[in-house]
């Protein structure tokens, strides 16, 4: 068997079980692929020693009683705290930070036998849609159509690039406004943001706590089902984690969606929507109809207000969450001048440690929470959030099982092409994804076709709360009908 790094999780698992391959072989294949792919800037902290040690241990425990992911090499987003391994959220302010503890998600993955190849690039504190706001520099999309380097999307850009370029079998991502689904769509990979509360947030560096949710990023839908099953579950250490049984997501993948009702939200048909994405969306609906689903038009009237509500709520929560980076307990502390007191220490440390976009969001959050503006901005945004959630509840109450929508407004764009001077332009990338975070719903991006310029395009399926199993099965059906098999050709 050659090029073991190109296997899916399911294929590798089956080969491991049959004894056709060892975890050490899989891990070595991934490690050499990683070393040959520095041009993609996907891995920002490589952990080959840990990987080899875990792979040997996995090979030793093979057989009965081994975990679902025994021996499977994965990449971990830099947002997850991993014990003794740099966990920086791609920020200068966490330079040198090596957690003394392990996040719940990575603990669960390791208990299941997974191997960690290293930490993956991302937008600083998960704030961004292009991986450009990273202290390590941007990750690069393995898909290339001309001289330009394209973005793999963000914030989980390193994860998406690593999965698409076969630098791991799967990766962890996190999604606050679209940070799993948009990069998945930009790289022809699959990513699911679960229902809020499905996966523990403990040990994941916080951005906006009421919106953040971790999920898998993988080569296909089956792999997402396998990995989500390991990542999910109640955790006493996260008070918002749900005490709800985790079903066997993989067993739910029958491909049978007869009788399911799929909603097409008319408000997502934005004026000036990219023609190819519009057409792909119609084709996706047709595929689901051909598979036996009933496709109906629905209305989600408050869609337009999701992005503005997000850009109040997320910065507000970020301004509070990121107050902990003060130069006292961990990470960077600025060099102080003589006579500088504690206030100067805070102000200089935060100015040096945080990148521009993070500073901007902290300050916007500070502003919308400040006396006199709290009601006008923050409370109003929370009321609009109630209405956005109600839109979905009404659609589901009317019998809709899942909603089909585009994942992104365009295919991947070039690094540096979206201006920094007008932040709103970048924010528009999340127009189709952010609604779900506000409503707490699960959503999955599935690669469905290629644009005429040869770049992958994805569609998004949105599910009922806690119905990830059903959602993944519909995604599985869409994946089979679309038959997307294209891979980026290696240039790096």
């Amino acid at each position, binding site marked *: 068997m050659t090029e073991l790094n190109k296997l899916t999780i399911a294929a590798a698992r089956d080969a491991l079980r049959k004894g056709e391959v060892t975890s050490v072989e899989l891990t070595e294949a991934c490690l050499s692929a990683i070393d040959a792919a520095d041009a993609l800037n996907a891995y920002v902290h490589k952990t080959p020693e840990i990987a080899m040690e875990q792979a040997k241990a996995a090979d030793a425990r093979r057989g009965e009683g081994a975990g679902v992911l025994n021996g499977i090499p994965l990449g971990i987003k830099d947002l997850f705290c991993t014990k003794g391994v740099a966990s920086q959220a791609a920020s200068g302010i966490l330079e040198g930070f*090596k957690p003394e503890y392990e996040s719940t998600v990575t603990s669960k993955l390791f208990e299941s036998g997974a191997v960690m190849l290293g930490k993956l690039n991302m937008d600083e504190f998960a704030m961004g849609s292009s991986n450009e706001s990273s202290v390590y520099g941007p990750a690069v999309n393995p898909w290339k159509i001309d001289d330009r380097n394209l973005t793999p999307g963000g914030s989980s850009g390193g994860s998406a690039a690593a999965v698409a370029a076969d630098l791991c079998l799967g990766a962890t991502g996190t999604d606050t406004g679209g940070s799993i689904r948009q990069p998945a769509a930009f790289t022809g990979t699959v990513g699911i943001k679960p229902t809020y509360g499905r996966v523990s947030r403990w040990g994941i560096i916080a951005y906006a706590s009421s919106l953040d949710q971790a999920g898998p990023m993988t080569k296909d839908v089956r792999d997402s089902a396998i990995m989500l099953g390991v990542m999910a579950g109640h955790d006493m250490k996260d008070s918002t984690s749900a*005490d709800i049984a985790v079903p066997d997501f993989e067993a739910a993948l029958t491909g049978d969606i007869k009788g399911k009702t799929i909603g097409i939200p008319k408000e997502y048909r934005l004026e000036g929507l990219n023609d190819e994405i519009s057409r792909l969306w119609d084709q996706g609906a047709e595929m689901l109809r051909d598979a036996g689903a009933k496709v109906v038009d629905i209305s989600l009237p408050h869609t337009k207000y999701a992005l503005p509500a997000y850009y109040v709520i997320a910065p507000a929560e970020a301004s509070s969450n990121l107050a902990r980076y003060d130069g*006292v307990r961990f990470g960077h502390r600025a060099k102080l001048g003589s006579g500088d007191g504690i206030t100067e*220490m805070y102000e200089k440390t935060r100015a040096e440690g945080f990148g521009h976009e993070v500073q*901007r969001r902290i*300050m916007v959050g500070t502003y919308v929470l400040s006396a006199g503006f709290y009601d006008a901005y923050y409370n*109003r945004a929370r*009321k609009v959030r109630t209405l956005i*959630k109600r839109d979905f509840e009404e659609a589901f109450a009317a019998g809709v099982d899942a909603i089909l929508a585009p994942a992104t407004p365009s295919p991947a764009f070039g690094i540096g092409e979206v201006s920094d001077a007008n932040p709103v332009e970048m924010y528009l990338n999340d127009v189709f994804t952010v609604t779900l975070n506000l409503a707490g719903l699960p959503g999955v991006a599935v690669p469905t076709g290629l644009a005429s310029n040869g770049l992958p395009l994805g569609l998004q399926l949105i599910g009922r709360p806690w119905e990830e199993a059903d959602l993944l099965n519909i995604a599985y059906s869409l994946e089979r009908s679309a038959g997307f098999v294209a891979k980026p050709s290696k240039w790096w």
Partner: protein
Amino acid sequence: MSIDTETARRVAKLARIKVEEDALPALAQEFNAILGFIEQLEEVNVDGIEPMTSVTPQRLKRRVDVVTDGDQQGAVLKNAPDAREGFFAVPKVVE
């Protein structure tokens, strides 16, 4: 609502982020772009709507009020930029 340089300075101060004087006008302009976008929310009728506090209708779990963790001084201080004699060290706070 328009943010001027003075407001930008005040917000930076509240956020404890040092912003150089000559960077304030550009910052104010970026705030205005974002707030201009956010102001669309004023179009929405929110009369009688409760602000969302929890996206999933669940009660927070309770546990017995007992010590479950502790004695980790070394681990807690491990990443501190400046730790001395078992404490975080900071510049002088009170004269």
